[in-house]
Each structure stands twice: as structure tokens, then as C-alpha cells.
């Protein structure tokens, strides 16, 4: 029997949810095990970095790389796995686009350290100690990796073959990709997004859509939405219109708006810009005949001001890969 092709699942700076989503393949995990040699997965197996280094280049068929690049160790593993893998897949939102922890790019590293170790409600730190790369203790020297000043996506570090979006990717989509490989179907053009659709979440959402015209935005805590109508039409900022389909439209099913975790739809460069453009075209500011520019702008501002956190709403997952990138560039 021929040797099974090797696959690896690696986590850089991540929450572990991508791994749990793989485990949520449930009984199909046994099919994965029957078709592949899961060679490297620090979450479940004890293969080590030295074992990876010992492999010939390109010996691993696919690496599913989750987590963003937050320190030098993450970056070094990205380079190593790139070298040893035929296909390197950015797996999940963190490695594809930075995800929620990428919002830390709105702040300097000093501010982050300050919030955690100095100006903090429970920390008692009279000597104003901040963790550092090297510390001399009585017995010798201790080191920890330096934290980068900003979060990077995988493709900022190495060449990426494919992207599987989602926070985390839904199990049925993970299975679609794995099944595709098992059946040796041809893969799409390199650089493509796989394990997802090409349109928007609206296409998967079962809510009724009518004419979109918004007079006022509401925050999610302010209203109980009607159960069958489009949430955006009810004034909730639902990111579905600017988000790739593939999840199955899950959040609107429980009366909550899409927050955008599947990233940009096909052909869209910037999720937040897409959302702003979409909203711009559906704001209803009433009859503007006879109003001055200032008065018109004020009406727009009044509606827009209902959303006090644009970055967190429009770029919750995609800030790192957006045009904006964040404040720290």
C-alpha cells in the first residue's frame, strides 16, 4: 500500500477554534485518518519542529495554517511549513485576514503593554514591570519571543496557495475541501479562496428582502428584530451584504446580524469599503430639495452617528488585510 499523503494543521497566534472545527467533523474524522497521514498537529500529536525540519522539501501535501503572525516564532514556523509543503493554505480568518485580534493594529504595542501591565484594574505592579525578551534571574537568563508591533497575515510573510475563510471555517466547508482533495479533483487557480462561495451571505440568508432604504440604524440591544425580514432593512448593521457566502447564513437564523467573519466576497478588495458603499446607497435622508449642503451633511451624519465604532463594525475581521491596515503601519 502506498504511503498516505501527509497533511499538517498548525496554529500560530490563534484561539484554537479552527482545530475544534476540524474535530467537529465528527465521524468524518475517521475518513480523514483513512486517507491522510496527519503528520503534524501540535494540538493533538507530538511531532515536533525538528521532525518537520528533517523532511524533504515539499514532503507535506497540504498544510492548513491557522492563526496570525504576532511574533518571530510564528513567522519562523510559517517559513518552515511553506518550504516543506506542496500546498500552504491560510486556514481561517486569522491567517487569511488577521481576524478580531488584528484589531490590536489600531493601537501601539506600548499602549497594549500599558493596558495589561500598568494601567490595569487588578494589577499591582509597584515596580512597573513589563515583560521583556530577556530577563536575568538569579539562576540565569530567561527569554520569551518579542511581540511584533502589529499583527500580520500569513501572506505578508510567505506565499499562500489557497485561503479558507471563516472564524472558524464551518466543518461542512472543511469537509468539502478535504473531499475534493481525496477525490483528486482539479484545484482552482492558485491564490483562490476555497471552501466558500463567491457571492455574499445574503444569497444564503432565508430572510425576505425588499427595497433597502434605511432611515435609522439601531444597535443590536435596542430592538427585537422581526423574525423573517432582512435585518439590514430593519436598521441593524448586518455585514452579510459585504461578506462572502459559505457559512450557511447562520447568525441571521438566530436573529443576530452577520458580523463578517467569512471575509470579502469574490472580487472585492476591502470589506469595510464595500459595506460603506452599500450603506451609502441605501440611506434614506428624506427629501433634500431646498436644503443646503451643510443641512444634507447633517442629516447623513445624524444617521451615521448611530454607529459609534466603524472600525469594529466594518473591519472586525479584516482590518489587517484591508486598505486601512490599522493605525500602526
Amino acid at each position, binding site marked *: 500500500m502506498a504511503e498516505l499523503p501527509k497533511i499538517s494543521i498548525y496554529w500560530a497566534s490563534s484561539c484554537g477554534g479552527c482545530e475544534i472545527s476540524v474535530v*467537529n467533523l465528527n465521524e468524518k474524522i475517521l475518513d480523514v485518518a483513512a486517507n491522510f497521514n496527519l503528520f503534524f498537529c*501540535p494540538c493533538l500529536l507530538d511531532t515536533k519542529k525538528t521532525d518537520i525540519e528533517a523532511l524533504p522539501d515539499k514532503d507535506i501535501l497540504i498544510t492548513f495554517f491557522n492563526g496570525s503572525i504576532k511574533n518571530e516564532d510564528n513567522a519562523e514556523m510559517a517559513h518552515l511549513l511553506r518550504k516543506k509543503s506542496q500546498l500552504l493554505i491560510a486556514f481561517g480568518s486569522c491567517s487569511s485576514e488577521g481576524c478580531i485580534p488584528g484589531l490590536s493594529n489600531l493601537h501601539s504595542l506600548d499602549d497594549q503593554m500599558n493596558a*495589561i501591565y500598568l494601567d490595569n484594574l*487588578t494589577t499591582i505592579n509597584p515596580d512597573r514591570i513589563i515583560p521583556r525578551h530577556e530577563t536575568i534571574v538569579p539562576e540565569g537568563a530567561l527569554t*520569551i519571543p518579542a511581540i511584533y508591533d502589529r499583527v500580520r497575515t500569513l501572506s505578508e510573510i510567505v506565499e499562500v496557495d489557497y485561503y479558507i475563510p471563516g472564524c472558524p471555517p464551518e466543518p461542512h466547508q472543511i469537509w468539502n475541501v478535504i473531499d475534493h482533495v481525496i477525490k483528486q479533483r482539479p484545484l482552482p487557480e492558485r491564490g483562490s479562496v476555497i471552501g466558500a462561495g463567491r457571492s455574499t451571505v445574503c444569497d444564503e440568508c432565508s430572510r425576505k428582502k425588499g427595497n433597502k432604504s434605511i432611515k435609522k440604524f439601531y444597535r443590536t440591544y435596542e430592538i427585537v428584530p422581526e423574525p423573517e425580514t432582512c435585518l439590514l432593512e430593519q436598521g441593524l448593521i448586518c455585514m452579510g451584504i459585504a461578506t462572502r457566502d459559505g457559512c450557511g447564513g447562520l447568525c441571521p437564523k*438566530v436573529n443576530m446580524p452577520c458580523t463578517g467573519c467569512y471575509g470579502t466576497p469574490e472580487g472585492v478588495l476591502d470589506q469595510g469599503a464595500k459595506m460603506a458603499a452599500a450603506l451609502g446607497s441605501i440611506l434614506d435622508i428624506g427629501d433634500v430639495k431646498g436644503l443646503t449642503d451643510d443641512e444634507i451633511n447633517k442629516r447623513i451624519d445624524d444617521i451615521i452617528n448611530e454607529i459609534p465604532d466603524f*472600525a469594529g463594525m466594518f473591519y472586525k475581521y479584516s482590518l489587517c488585510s484591508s486598505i486601512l491596515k490599522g493605525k500602526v503601519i
Partner: protein
Amino acid sequence: MNKITIEPITRLEGHGKIEIFLDEKGNVANTYFQVPELRGFEQFCVGRLAEDMPVITNRICGVCPEAHHMASVKALDDLFGVVPPPAAVKIRELIYMAFYVTDHTTHFYALGGPDFIIGPEAPPAERNILGVIKKVGLDIAKQVIDCRARNHHILELLGGRGIHLVAGVPGGWSRAVSVDERRQIEDIARKNIDFALFTLKIFSDIVLKNSAYLDLITSDIYLHKTYYMGTVDDKNRVNFYDGLVRVVDPEGKEFVKYHPKEYASHIAEHVEPWTYLKFPYLKNIGWKGFEDGINSGVYCATPLSRLNVSDGMATQLAQEHYEQFYETLGSKKINGRYQPVHYRLATHWARLVELLYAAEHMLELAIDPEITSDHIRNIPKEIKGVGIGSVEAPRGTLTHHYISDTRGVLTKINLIVGTTNNYAPMSMSIKRAAQKFIYNGQIVTEGLLNKIEMAFRLYDPCLSCATHTLPGKMPMEVTIRDKDCNIIRTLARD
């Protein structure tokens, strides 16, 4: 001075690293358990909408996002000054019990359990989930998969997603339970009870009936007498979702019982320059270093801690197992309460008592007629500007604290996260195990790796919240260096 480095997932995969320094005689001078990662939620949550926090803080941990979601939504109830309707509280709790069942199950069968089911002295290559399947049979493996699947189904159905739920809103829950769904959930809860009892039986047959294992549990390698913390209900019984936080001293006497909102009067955090993770301790005792005992502020918050702080379990079968737990481990009752069990390896057993409680309580909620009420939200009428919420995460008391402006935009946040509570106790357990297996220059190689690994794992340090590692079968590498830091020997666990 000689230095031994144990890197759980090798240096470069760094989510946790242990340094052992030897003195001139070759005995352990000190150990350091370092956490080399930081993601900075405390800062980047500033400027976010308060109501986004249940979705944002999910991403602290993909293994226990449900705990963050619940602590967060409770903090929002407080910040928005709104009380959720009874049905919403019950739905939240029901989901939380389903989560506990899957989480504790995963730990027992895939992570911590292999040490016992396969045996602590067995070859490391067999001490994993595949070894468990081999020993207990494929049929049981399928039961474990089924248990995870049916409970994750509940999470997705009621929470919106299988991982990183979205349905928590200040003042309630965004999705009601239908009558048909309630029947389905009841059926699942009953299966969970059977599964929990079955799991306790496996533990009894394999571990408790084996005197060698019992000796190991009650050996002094894994003994630490610290304070314990956990949440209790109005009868001082274990509660995961709500109640008062109770702390008992190493003798079992109540040290303090406080409302979670007062947490900052009781918990403080210590900073060391050689690790990114902070060390919580009891503020009113003070940080005295990595020390056991009544004069040290170090406390532990684990399944074992929750049992130790409580007067019992709130469900019948779990109470029976609770009593068996303390009787078997030789704990005596004083003033109607069992004395604390300090054997840290008993945490594995305590976790299974909790598994049974979660399953039983899930059934109680599933058969409660109110669970299908469609009154699941109260709309907030104010923004108070401060909100504190806490739950018992599987790995310890979890507290979220938010401060907002008048628009509900956050200006400051603070988090005391489950596993973090146990950072000092874990460090101490590692040192104890190292001292036991390294002396006079002699290094008991396999024993060292095994036993340190076990000292670590009993805390269930998927360390997800802190370091995000799931060391089900933790790879280890020990590098021994001479005083000039040249490597003289490397031990590796394959």
C-alpha cells in the same frame, strides 16, 4: 549553573515553556513556567461597542468560547442595567451545561484521561486518544464522538454557531426554544446522564480499583495545600453559571464569600518580567511568591477547587458521587463539610463528578416548562457604564469587567481568565515534580517527562485562554546545559 529547558511544543511553536535551573549539587534550584504569547484584548476592546463583546471575547479561546460568551453577556446585563427574563437565563444555562458536557468529555477521553486509562507508566506513544480507543474499544470512541456531536448540535441550534456563539444579548437571548426542540434536548440530556455515569464507571473500574493508581493520586508529588476558589449557589452548592464566589483556606474554612462584582477587592495580579501571563492571587493575603499554605495568596480554581469550596452538588446522582469522592480519598467532615482534598490528580475525578452534574442539570432545565417561553429578551433602558459578569469556566472562575461611556462604547476592560487563576499553582506543581525527579545530578529521564507532564495536565491546561495549547499528548524536549549554556544532553519525547 545548569539549565534544563522543557519546551512543551518546542521553542518555536512556543505556547508554553519550562526552564529548570540546577544548583551546584545538581538539585533543582528553581523552575520557571513561561507563557510566551500575548494578544492584547485588554487594549483593542477599547473603542468597541459594548454589545459586541460576547462575539469579540469568544475569540480569546476557541475551546471554551461559551464561557467567555456567558461571562460577557452577564457583564452586559449589568452594564445596561437590565435583568433577563427567566426563560433567557434558563436557555443560557442549558447551553452552558451542554458545553460543559462536551468540554469535560473531551478532556477525559482525549487529554487527561489517557494518563490513567492507558497508565502513567505506559509508553508515551500509546498514551493518547488512539490508545484509549484501543483499550476501551471503538464502540466507546463512537460514543464519545456522538456525545460531542449531539451537544455541539445544541450549541449551534440555540447559540447560532457551533463555535463562537452569537445569540447572547444584554437582557436576554436572541433565540427561543420551540416545543419540538425541547423534546429533542430532553432526549440529549438523558443520553448525557447515561454517558456521564458510564464514564464514572470506567474511571472506577480502571483507576479506583487499581491500588497503584490510587497510590499515585494520593502521593505527595501532586499535593499542594492552597486556597481554593469556586462559585456556589445560595445553599453553597457548586454552580457554573451564577452565584457567589467562595474562597476556602487550606483547612477548608471559608475565607471569604463575595459577589462577583466585588472581585477587584479580592483578586489582584502579579507581574513577572519573564512571562506575558500575570499571576492572580488573593489580594487580602498578598503575593508571597510561589508558596503553598495559609499565608500565601496563591489559590487554585479548578473542578477540584469547586468541589472543595462547596457543601455539595445540586443534583442527586452527582451528590452521591461527590460523597464517594471525599470518602474514598479519606476526607473527614468538619461542621458538616468535607475537608478539602489537596491531591491535585484527583482533579480528574472531580471533573467527572461535574460532568454528571452538568448532564443532570441540563435535564432539569430541559423539562422546565418555562424553557419554551417566547419572552426571552428585555430591552435595556439605560447605560450604567460599568458591567461585571462572571461564570465558572471549566478551568476556573472567569470574570469580565467593562467600563463604557454614555453611548455604550468601551473605555476600559479587565479580564481574569479561567486558566490564568491557576498559573501560580501550575508553576508550583511543575517545580514539585522536577524536584522529585532531579536530585544530586541524577535525572530520571522518562519519569521526569511523564510526571511533569501529568502535573501540568491535571489542571486541564488546554491553557486555551492563556496560551491556547491543547497538550493532549504534550511533546516535550529537555535540553540540559552546563554552566556556560552549552548543551550537554537532549531528551525528547516522541
